[in-house]
């Protein structure tokens, strides 16, 4: 199943709410959640459970969402921002909790006027929601936090974290306060449907401006759910407090509690790949490469392995250069991810060796690379 399959072609009985159907927890999702929690330095909870969150909406076929309100699978953790992200200070953005929950269906407006169309393909699919503590204080920090989260989660194979595809989504809560007041004294507004880092930055800036203007003109900030109009550079109301539903949380009776053992959690920890920050320092040191080069390599999932396999016994700078300019250039041309490409480290190694011994010219080597990436396996 793919994210852009035709509507209503990937529907399970339980996701359509067919009477008699029952939900099932996918154990793989528990494993993925544990990886994410450990990668973020959080604590995997040995016991967690599910709840039903009730509200009626066209994208909610059962009239409730299965989520983890009382007892989430992960607590704590952090994302560190600093010089590597281009800031001239360092700061930890702490994570409050991580929870597993169901995705909703997709509502499509504006296709048939007067109708809302519902696509159930993604309904019921597991999501991992990561809730931060209110440590973020600028629009820039918000965007950097999300970007760093993307890099990390891609690296440990939790998700593609692709905002265009919807494999990562982002809601931001914003409030302001006077210096003389308590940090969290302001009324929060939730900004939803922010689908790129640029939009996050813009939306948060716009909302801060709006809230300050509201307060300075003597009015209170109302608790609302708002969206961002990128063209106008302003946020707008989606839902006001009066329309906010009472979710009537109830323990989910169809899914038993999750019980994890210390052994299981430890095994998950050992199976984690080397975390990006650790790899960044080590590869610079071990191969004498620049920080920018290593960052470029780290940013592409699977690239570290390709680099290290190829660089063994060879000139690291040459290998790095081939990867970051030629290979990445080809990937970009094909709109492909490295993980989906056919190129092997064996092929790349052979190519670089041949260049070294001058058995091929630079131009021929580039042609060879293209052939390899087309799937041809000549030597």
């Amino acid at each position, binding site marked *: 199943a793919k994210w852009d399959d035709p509507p209503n072609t990937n529907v399970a009985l339980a996701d*359509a709410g067919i009477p008699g159907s*029952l939900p099932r927890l996918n154990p793989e999702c528990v494993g993925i959640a544990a990886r994410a929690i450990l990668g973020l330095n959080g604590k995997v909870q040995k016991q967690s459970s599910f709840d039903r969150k009730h509200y009626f909406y066209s994208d909610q076929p059962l*009239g409730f969402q299965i989520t983890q309100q009382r007892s989430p699978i992960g607590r704590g953790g952090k994302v560190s921002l600093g010089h590597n992200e281009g800031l001239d200070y360092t700061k930890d953005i702490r994570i409050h909790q991580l929870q597993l929950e169901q995705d909703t269906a997709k509502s499509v407006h504006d296709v048939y006027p007067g109708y809302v169309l519902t696509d159930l393909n993604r309904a019921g699919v597991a999501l991992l929601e990561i809730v931060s503590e209110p440590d973020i204080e600028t629009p820039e920090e918000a965007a950097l936090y999300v970007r760093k989260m993307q890099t990390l989660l891609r690296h440990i194979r939790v998700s593609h974290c692709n905002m265009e595809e919807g494999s990562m989504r982002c809601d931001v809560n914003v409030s302001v306060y006077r210096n003389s007041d308590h940090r969290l004294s302001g009324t929060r507004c939730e900004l939803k449907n922010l689908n790129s880092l640029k939009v996050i930055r813009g939306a948060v800036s716009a909302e801060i401006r709006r809230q300050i203007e509201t307060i300075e003109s003597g009015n209170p900030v109302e608790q609302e759910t708002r969206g961002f109009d990128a063209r106008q550079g302003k946020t707008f109301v989606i839902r006001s407090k009066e329309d906010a539903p009472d979710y009537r949380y*109830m323990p989910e*009776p169809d*899914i*038993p509690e999750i019980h994890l053992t210390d052994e299981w959690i430890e095994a998950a920890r050992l199976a984690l790949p080397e975390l990006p920050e650790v790899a960044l320092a080590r590869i610079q040191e071990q191969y004498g490469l620049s920080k920018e080069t290593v960052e470029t390599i780290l940013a592409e999932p699977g690239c570290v392995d390709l680099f290290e396999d190829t660089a063994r016994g060879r000139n690291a700078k040459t290998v790095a250069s081939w990867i970051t300019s030629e290979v990445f250039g080809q990937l970009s041309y094909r709109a492909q991810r490295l993980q989906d490409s056919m190129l092997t480290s064996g092929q790349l190694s052979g190519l670089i060796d041949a260049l070294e011994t001058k058995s091929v010219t630079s131009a021929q080597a580039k042609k060879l690379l293209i052939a390899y990436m087309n799937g041809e396996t000549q030597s």
Partner: protein
Amino acid sequence: MDEFGMGSKNEFSIYGATRNPCEQTPEVGGSKERHQPHRHSPGGSSGGSAAAVASGMCRIALGSDTGGSVRLPAAWCGVVGFKPTYGRVSRHGLAAYGSSLDAIGVMARSVCDVRAAFHVMSVSDPRDMTCMSSKLRRRIESFTGSREWTKHVDWENGATKASKPLDGVRIGIPKEFWVDELSLSALESWKSGAQRLADLGCEIVQVSLPHIPSSLPAYYTLAFAESSSNLARYDGIRYGTRSNQLPAKSNGSNASYKYANTRSEGLGSEVQRRILLGTYVMTASASEQYHVLAQKIRRLIQKDFDSVFALPNVLALDGADPPGPAVADRPKGVDALLFPTATDTAPLLGTLAQNPVTGYVNDIMTVPANLAGIPAVSVPVDIDSTGMPVGLQLAAQFGDDDLLLSIAAHLQSQFV
């Protein structure tokens, strides 16, 4: 069947009420009958199944028992109605009412047939996460199998091979079920049932389940809450009937109004009543006072049962292996409980009082077993002075379905 399983008398069906085949009417289907003012309820909500078995249309019928919906109609129609331990039979395919209470039950004219059907259905199912795994089933089996003093309880065809086949079995009479509403016929059959079990060799003792009086309000709070949740999906969008009336407002954010016409037209009045009550007890302002409290009472009722049964509750053992000698030495506690299935025999249809809530009191004898998830069975024992059947109920510890059915078979054989 009452609509969505919501009813105790089989009155709430858009297809009309079901008749109780045990009533003393001259002809079924004849013109005389249509003018007959007295029509008895078969019970509910699985009254159709009970009526079918009682009238000989079939040998075995299934029902769902959330608060007594298999046992009550079985008692009122004079057949056997069995509610297994929660999780024995998969709920996949059962339109959910109260997910933590629902159990698929079996009805037949003999316990023998009930047991045969039950054994076929009692298997693990990965499609239902609350259905007992094979591992848990084996654990329960080794647990109950290690119990020395019931090993001799002969099941085979229910016939007494020994003069005292239930020698050593201890039956508890819970005093909290002796309620004011109990009719003379219910009381009489309760005493008579206890006497017959004693004749078979049982030791009869009185026990106390102190929180039973709170079980009815706790049950209805939880059942209605869960059903309001499980019935939220009936909105006419993906299946089912949809109202022709257009929604009232066109405000995009609040979608409940879009479903209101469909649900008001498509759901019966009793169903709507229960959904509204269930929704209410889960609202932020009421939840602590009703829903959370009901869950706590439920836990206390489960503990009450655990305190009177000789067999520990395998769920409370937390991964420990079945205790060896402790279970082998006859501990304190009873092996099964005996009490009536209903406060009276089948009432007349149409006698539902102005306040439908008074009908809920019928369930007072049956809901505790659903709250605790323990197995319970109604056995036909008697006929009252008006000729209507009386049922007696046996309940056992969580997972102890086979022993329960053995005792039930012996009890039934005493009244045939």
